[in-house]
């Protein structure tokens, strides 16, 4: 079983869909992960990206579903080991890095304690005002590759997206055990200087000869 992110605790076996927890030298069978439905995402495990001068590689994916549809969250790891989520929505991308200092924010802290956030709520990050725009209860549809979280069938969480006028995004994710905060920017695929994109039948990868 290929491991792209050795620092990550969870891996999904591509052959039997078993979710494996690695702890030191110990490997534990945690359960089964749903098969990912077919999609035409241009990203695949092994795709490389460059954002703000940092190179990173995609090592895992979770697909989340909510009442209004479903989307991919790709996990990318920089050479430093830093983790990024690349969220794919309607052909646009949001690349976020973990922002633990935000957990000190009173609004985030009360969210972590189970309080609700309503659309339009404001949080200031890095001097920018971000407005809560998407509040979703999401359920895992499946996963692949190496991940920092468990993606067993039935995994649920609350996801809140905040956006600024200039395209910055803050994503708060709360599951049964913890809350994490992720902050970053909106991108189109071309400006992420992608390498090793997935070849989709019938389409030409922009910038590559036909």
């Amino acid at each position, binding site marked *: 079983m290929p491991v792209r992110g050795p620092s990550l605790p969870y891996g999904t076996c591509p052959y039997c869909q078993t979710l494996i927890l690695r702890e030191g030298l110990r490997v534990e069978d945690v359960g089964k992960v749903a098969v990912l*439905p*077919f*999609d*035409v*995402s*241009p990203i695949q495990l092994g795709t490389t990206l460059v954002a703000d001068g940092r190179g990173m590689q995609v090592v895992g994916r979770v697909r989340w*579903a909510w009442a*209004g*549809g*479903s989307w*991919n969250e790709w996990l990318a790891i920089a050479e430093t080991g830093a983790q990024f989520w690349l969220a794919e929505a*309607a*052909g*646009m991308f949001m690349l976020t890095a973990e922002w633990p200092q935000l957990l000190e924010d009173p609004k985030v802290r009360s969210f972590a304690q189970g309080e609700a956030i309503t*659309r339009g709520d404001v949080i200031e990050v890095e001097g920018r005002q971000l407005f809560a*725009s998407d509040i979703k209860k999401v359920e895992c*549809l499946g996963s692949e590759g190496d991940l920092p979280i468990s993606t067993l069938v039935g995994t649920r969480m609350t996801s809140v997206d905040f*956006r600024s*006028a*200039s*395209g910055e995004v803050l994503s708060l994710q709360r599951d049964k055990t913890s809350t994490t905060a992720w902050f970053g920017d*909106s991108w*189109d*695929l*071309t400006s992420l200087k992608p390498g090793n*994109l997935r070849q*989709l*039948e*019938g*389409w*030409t*990868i*922009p910038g590559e000869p036909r």
Partner: protein
Amino acid sequence: MSGGKAITCPACGGKIEVRAAGFTVNLACQNCGSLLDVSLPEVVLIRRYKNAKDRFALEIGKRGTVFGQEWEVVGALRRKDQITIWQEFLLFNPYLGYRWLLVADGEWQFGTPLADRPQGDRNRVFWRGENFSRLGRDQPTSTTAVAGEFYWRVKAGDTANATLFQSGETILSREVSDGEENWTQLVPVDETEIENAFGLNRRSLPRRKAAQGLMQFKAAPGMEQDDLGRMFLLAMAISLFAAIAMALLAGPSTKTSSMIQVPVGGQIAPVKIGTITVRRPWQFVTIDADANRFENRWVDLEYNLVDRSSEQSIDAFGLVEHYAGTSSDGAWTEGSHHGDTMFGHVPRGTYDVYVSGSAHGWPVDPAVTDAWGSTETINLTIEASTGAMSWGMWWTLVFALFAWPVSILWWRFRDK
């Protein structure tokens, strides 16, 4: 041909290709038109239709190149507001995401969804270093037909509130529905480019508005449907009608004219200009006085229409004055070398027209004679006529008729 996914329509059993698998949420079956939810592995029927195939200008599934990039038409919407009906096409390329093509009134626009939001107020927004001003007012829009697939829960009957902002040829469109705000940048694209890229079902294009000439402004995007065009037409019709009516009322015309000389600082006794005849029970009579060029002088004129049969006189006064000078604001002039006088109600009869008058200098009369011993005079051509029209009255009417629609038009377009 595309790397899509095939599903089976739960309503009609037909095979459907999902072109943007993983992104598409709702899909209208291309066989029966039923609306399906394909966001989850299991396809869910949202609404069953039978043969609800709608004709759109572009066919779902066509591929073509717009602005140098390849796109596939994956969805089509028919939408309307209070002014017009138009079609929107959702374009997809898995590497580039989504774009829009809009066609309304024979014009095509290419739309790019914005991740960064323009900032501003109701009338003006600022986006990527440019100012955009509002075009028309907010319009409630509604979707009347859907075909193909969409990345959100779409359905016929969806409504949104749309506002357009313009800078040059670029338009930013803001659509708000269910509290969600979406911005799209729209740039014009030639119909020939669209036709070359995707082919065009010309018969399915949205009907062009019969918007030509004077009515053209009504078709400006974002302009609400209203009576402005009718107001203009009505005002024009009334002006024309009034001109004809006044010409008819004015009746047959007779004219007489003569030239007089009035010494500056002096006066002249009544001079007979000629004879005019009023053939209707009553008519307007106008007397025009036309002077040679002079500055800082005024001429008081007295006109007498003397009825030949009764020897009764009808009197009126005229004034010709013109001043020029320089003040702190620069050079100025005031008055005119021309003066019209109108007799409003002259009964039937034959009249001798007499004129007398005096001329003066401003601020004081000049010396009566100059160094050469000659007297300064002002030459005036006096023309009396019956059957004249009161153009002043007519212009007042025209002004009153057009004031309202013109102010509306000005108010609307001042921001552009």
